[in-house]
């Protein structure tokens, strides 16, 4: 798939187009539980969450990951993606408004391809980091 963006001029330090998402609601979590197949009650059942010492239900880490995935595939076609990793550093709560960003940290050649490494992050409306991640993309798919 041919990217819509000019990947030849990409350089270290460049930011890719960010993605902001609406506040997480209980409906967001219910729909994500159903659509993802992750029915762990801690994300949708307040009684279960409280029983296990949480104040409220909270978002699936993979919901924030899916937002990062949307940011990446809005930027480049999906077959440009070589690897994608993420570490969940804090829980995302109901009413959190998550924003995704990505920055090029390295350009290199591997397997005969021009590739770039990115650092990724998800923060909420208070600037609290929820997810940090990295991805490698091929620039000449």
């Amino acid at each position: 798939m041919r990217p819509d963006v000019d990947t030849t001029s990409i350089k270290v330090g460049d930011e890719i187009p960010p993605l902001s998402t609406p506040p997480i609601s209980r409906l967001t979590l219910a729909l994500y539980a159903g659509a993802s197949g992750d029915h762990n009650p801690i994300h949708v059942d307040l009684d279960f969450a409280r029983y296990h010492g949480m104040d409220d239900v909270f978002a699936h880490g993979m919901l924030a990951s899916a937002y990062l995935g949307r940011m990446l595939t809005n930027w480049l076609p999906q077959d440009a993606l070589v690897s994608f990793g993420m570490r969940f550093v804090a829980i995302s709560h109901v009413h959190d408004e998550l924003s995704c960003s990505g920055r090029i940290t390295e350009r290199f050649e591997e397997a005969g391809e021009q590739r770039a490494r990115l650092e990724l992050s998800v923060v909420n409306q208070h600037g609290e980091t929820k997810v940090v991640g990295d991805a490698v993309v091929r620039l000449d798919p």
Partner: protein
Amino acid sequence: MIDPSFIGFRLPVHTQLVEAGRLRFFARAIGETNPVYLEEDAARAAGWRSLPVPPTFLFCLDMERDNPYDYMDTLGIELGKVLHGEQHFDYYQVACAGDRLTFDSRITDIYQKKAGAMEFVVRETAVYRDTGRQEPDRLADLRSIIIIRHR
């Protein structure tokens, strides 16, 4: 404490059919607006065989097995204490609606931090795409780390 002898434990292999309706449901649930992930025509116009499986959905397809929490049950882990710590994907191909994917997982590490207050279980999953030929294609590798919090 989780028995470290479970390192190397192989989970039951399972195969899933990628369903277009489910991909659209997932796309809506994550607020996707890119038509490539919502409309068959847009996907084909962009060069895909059908709706592509978005980057994180392989993790979800792996949860379509009979009991997605099976290994937690086997290892004696209480679901309510589990947090997702890390997730990693290596991609070799993009799957599309209509594909049949096979998931083969092993527990590859078990360790603890903070004097046992937090335990970690690492699971690695190889994903194959059925091509109709004898040898399936390696589609992706997944690595998942869960954290079990003890208070």
